[in-house]
């Protein structure tokens, strides 16, 4: 049973994730994404992007890294061997491109347990930091340019479910 005390919790902007060209190409190959804008710089620039464009679900790589702050916390009581993915949503405020330095703010929006099943909804707000910034500033109003929102719900089955 997921620990309900975590509902409403937020985490500070995390250490930046550097989006690399080869990571975009590798992820694109893994999801069978053959559009040239994922692979070829000339094609990406031809569409008006500064660099290779990430596939629509690439942000999950960034989000899952951030979510581990919460789901790997023993206090959160999430048994990963009993987790199934219930739903996922990506909202892109602008496409993620190679060269982005992304920092993410994690929110635990909802924890609902019914019988032996817990449903946990997290929200990752992903920001691109300005080029000269190396770590997110805790004083800044926003960690950077808002690029994506990733909302994910996990279902955790109890021992007898």
């Amino acid at each position: 049973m997921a620990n309900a005390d975590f509902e409403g919790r937020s985490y500070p902007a995390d250490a930046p994730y550097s989006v690399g060209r080869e990571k975009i190409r590798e992820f694109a190959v893994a999801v069978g994404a053959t559009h040239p804008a994922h692979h070829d710089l000339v094609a990406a620039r031809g569409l008006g992007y500064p660099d290779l464009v990430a596939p629509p679900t690439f942000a999950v790589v960034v989000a899952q890294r951030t979510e581990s702050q919460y789901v790997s916390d023993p206090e959160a009581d999430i048994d990963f061997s009993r987790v199934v993915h219930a739903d996922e949503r990506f909202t892109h405020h602008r496409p993620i491109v190679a060269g982005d330095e992304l920092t993410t703010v994690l929110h635990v929006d909802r924890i609902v347990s019914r019988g032996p099943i817990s449903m946990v909804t997290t929200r990752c707000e992903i920001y691109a930091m300005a080029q000269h910034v190396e770590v997110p500033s805790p004083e800044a109003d926003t960690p950077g340019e808002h690029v994506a929102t990733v909302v994910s719900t996990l279902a955790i089955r109890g021992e007898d479910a």
Partner: protein
Amino acid sequence: MSRPDIATLAVGDVIGSRTVTFDRAALVRYAGASGDLNPIHWNDKFAKDAGLPGVIAHGMLTMGTVVGLVVDWAGDPGAVVDYQTRFTKPVEVPNPGTALIEVVGTVGVVDADAGTVRVDLAVTVDGAKVLVRAQALVRL
């Protein structure tokens, strides 16, 4: 690459369909590329101990793969401004062998003022839905 003309689109239009296949190598490749190393996606014993019929594909592999139909139709990966789904049924991947996933994209909503189209994806394995409410909002 030509882009669809929103003025010519109507609700119910089929944008295309395709069949994609996953074998165990595809699952391992996605595990590595995504960083999702959960053993239910590559270890039969672990998957069975977790109460699953066997190794299953990452829901995110299915979600990430089927949207390629929309990206290729739109002609620009950045045109997909919102994409969501619910995962209803795990996709079992045999060893040896492949899982066959059928994808059909249909125009669900046309918003000419906003310049957006919602594409609804029907995603099935052996006729059973594996994704539900799989919707991509595309800016044209």
